[in-house]
């Protein structure tokens, strides 16, 4: 059987003209306008927030009572203002919004997340997390496999906004045969007309002819990629232009914050009912081998403010029970700070799972600061266990099939 996507890939889909919105989007808008309680599990949205470069987990979820923490971090330790969660642990002082979510029972924190034989290379370790395979590699991403699964079971909305990445790249987590749209701004996500002596000439139809038959012209590997990409881009562009005017943010996003802009863009695509299933945003800059503190403090502040605005926005639109946010980073950092007031590459770190569907609390075990492996924490929870918990408990997808193994399901989510 052909899915609609197969038709699109083979260039069989009729070219849609002008600003008409394809039916699937019209339905999407209508569905979003309807009450969310009717939403099926596949209407749920997972938003991944990648903390790129290796987030310092010990200065995120802080063991403020542990003498070993203070000894290991003579200049980097957070002495004041830690937002206590219990007698031992607290959040970084800049994570006030996350603390409020914690108080509201909407923040789950999984402690000591990592994997066996940790790799201290950024890129090797990212690949492990992205593919959910400790061998890493260039296979499909773990969420790409989820999108493929939606397609197989007929739950896929079958269009290019099913997976959205805010940025100029499609992240490897979403890599699969399913099209994913990289979005940077709605304003620029369109083909500009040609100005011919003051007259606007629409070039979409002629260009679509180039890009519907290039694959068949027999060129090297990129013919099909170019053809389908322009078709998907224009499909998504039409859908976005049709809804652009209607979205009004109901959260206060900080200005001059790329992570806030990225999350706002994701919120807009979700609120506009464009059928987003998974979204990805990246906050980079965590690889602080030197002068870490001011940089890390600012990154966590930006993260907290952006997430807070995003959750407010979704709540304001009545969509908060359909959206789950999960943070990850390729590794934590060395327990003992180095001589540059920074930290070198490490291993285990906490993950945040945030949103109304969450059963708030601490999960897993805080790794010991006195039982280290080459100066690094020993992980206590396998990251694939967190993935499995979200896939099964929230997205209602067959976690062991998608992850290629059985991992402990943590009770992170409401039923």
């Amino acid at each position, binding site marked *: 059987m052909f899915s609609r996507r197969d038709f699109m890939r083979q260039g069989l889909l009729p070219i849609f003209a002008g600003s008409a919105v394809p039916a699937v989007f019209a339905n999407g808008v209508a569905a979003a306008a309807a009450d969310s309680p009717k939403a099926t599990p596949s209407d749920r949205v997972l938003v991944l927030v990648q903390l790129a*470069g290796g987030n310092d987990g010990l200065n995120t979820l802080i063991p403020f009572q542990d003498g070993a923490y203070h000894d290991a971090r003579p200049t980097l330790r957070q002495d004041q203002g830690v937002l206590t969660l219990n007698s031992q642990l607290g959040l970084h002082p800049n994570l006030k919004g996350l603390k409020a979510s914690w108080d509201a029972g909407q923040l789950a924190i999984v402690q000591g997340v990592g994997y066996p034989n940790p*790799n*201290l*290379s*950024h*890129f*090797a370790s990212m690949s492990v997390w992205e593919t959910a395979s400790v061998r890493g590699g260039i296979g499909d991403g773990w969420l790409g496999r989820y999108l493929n699964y939606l397609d197989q079971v007929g739950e896929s909305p079958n269009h290019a906004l099913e997976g959205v990445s805010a940025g*100029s*790249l499609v992240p490897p987590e979403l890599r699969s045969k399913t*099209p*994913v*749209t*990289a*979005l*940077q701004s709605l304003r*620029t*996500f369109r*083909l*500009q007309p*040609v100005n*011919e*002596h003051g007259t606007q*000439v629409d*070039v979409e139809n*002629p*260009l679509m*002819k*180039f*890009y*519907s*038959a*290039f694959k*068949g*012209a*027999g*060129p*090297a*590997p*990129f*013919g099909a*990629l*170019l*053809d389908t*990409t*322009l078709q*998907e*881009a224009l499909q*998504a*562009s039409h859908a976005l232009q049709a809804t652009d005017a209607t979205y009004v943010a109901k959260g206060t996003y900080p200005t001059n914050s790329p992570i806030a802009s990225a999350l706002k863009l994701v919120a807009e695509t979700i609120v506009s009912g464009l059928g987003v299933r998974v979204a990805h945003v990246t906050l*980079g800059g965590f*690889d602080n*081998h*030197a*002068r870490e503190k001011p940089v890390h403090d600012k990154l966590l502040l930006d993260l907290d403010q952006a997430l807070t605005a995003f959750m407010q926005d979704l709540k304001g639109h009545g969509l908060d029970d359909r959206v789950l946010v999960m943070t990850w980073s390729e590794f934590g950092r060395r327990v003992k700070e*180095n*001589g*540059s*007031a*920074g930290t070198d*590459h490490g291993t285990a770190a906490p993950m945040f799972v945030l949103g109304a569907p969450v059963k708030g609390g601490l999960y897993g075990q805080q790794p010991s600061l006195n039982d280290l492996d080459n100066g690094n924490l020993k992980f206590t929870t396998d990251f694939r266990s967190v993935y499995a918990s979200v896939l099964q408990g929230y997205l209602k997808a067959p976690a062991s099939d998608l992850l290629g193994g059985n991992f402990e399901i943590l009770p992170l989510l409401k039923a």
Partner: protein
Amino acid sequence: MDDAASRTSPATTRPIWKRPVSRRAVLATGAAGATATALAVLWKGDALSQILDRVRDLTHAYQGALNNERVRVAHLLRRAGFGATAGELDRYLAMGTAGATQVLLDYPKTSNASLDAALPAVDPSGGRGAATVAAIQGWWLQRMVETARPLEEKMTLFWHGLLTSGLDKAGPAQMFTQNQLFRKMAMGNFDDLLKAISKDPAMMIYLDTETNRKGKPNENYARELMELFTTGIGHYSEDDVRESARAFTGWTLQGSQQRRLTTDSVFVPRLHDAGPKTFMGRNGNFTGDDIVDMLAPLRVTAERLSTRLFSFFAYPNPEPEIVHHLADTFQKNRYNVGAVVREIFAMDAFYSPKAYRALVKSPAELVAQTLKATGADAKGYVAAATAMAPMGQVLFYPPNVAGWPAGSSWINSSTLLTRINLANSATQRMRTALPTQSLDNLTRTLVDGNLSPSTKDGLKAYAAAHPGDQAGLLFMVLATPEFQLN
């Protein structure tokens, strides 16, 4: 073709990079008689769909395009440089492929005086013409477009993508200084370049060697030197990372200026850990230079750099035989990079059907070739360099220490719209200055005159419907899928 007929020795007797082009490609370039013969042969032996496939190849001549010398030279200029204007293409074509290759490789003999005269002043020491982000980006893009030494700029871009540093940590004057270092050492010995980059202020800030002190080692540079710059992952231990970090202590930024303004470095013996170290099984009181001297001769380093260079110039995932041969070349020539590049351009594999349009134009290549076609003024260079960000490549600002991922990752829904829109704004910006050119001339210069039937028909229809709109027509050529590839 006579040439093709003479190349019928069994493939197994020749190395893969010297094998004749495929039979299909030879057929595709044949004269009408040969085409008829080929068709007759095919008709007897193949299913209808395969026959139709081959008829399309024969008529489209896509795979055989590189048997035409004008296309070969255009291909060479796209790969060794940033494409060509019609005038440049004619000039190199007059030298023949071999002559053009020689001139491109021996670029120190080519004067760049007219570029130097045209470039805006950039002063890394501050003051008037101080290096700002926009200034150095526009400056470099202008170099790519207007240089008389295209390979020099292309290799500079190669090194920027491999030995990465970025404006997220280093200052623009430092990135400018590093860029000049790459240009100066672009085709020299790899070990010399690694020793120089280890002491380069932008790199020292980007990978934290400036804070790497005796008793306070910082692993950042040592790790990436092995993982990304030389051996690749899997060829060193965590102990090697820790020990070599100690070896790189001692170099620090010179002078009393702010750290992001300092463009000189200095060795301070008291900051250097001169004690004994164990690195890759060897013991000694190693310095950073000693570490480079142990990494450069490794076979894995030779193979990794060879793979990277071939993939940059010819096509990705080269055959093992090709990597082996290039790694031999590298090692026999005292780690000389120029020798490897020269060898790549001499390979038949470089002109094989597998290489033709086998790379996606990086944003730098796309924008530079676009500006060659449209022309640009100083403001145009800065504007175009800025417009590269949503295409996924900001000069002097790689996404992370691994550089740009390249290949198919350049193309997604967002970047493709941006790439096409850039061609639109660049042509509109210069619309009153564009010379009148026929569609045939435009496609010959920009896309080898080699278009899919639907692109060709579409362009003709556009030209007929919009007579006299030179900017619109040029835009349409730059917006083709063919132009997205290199």
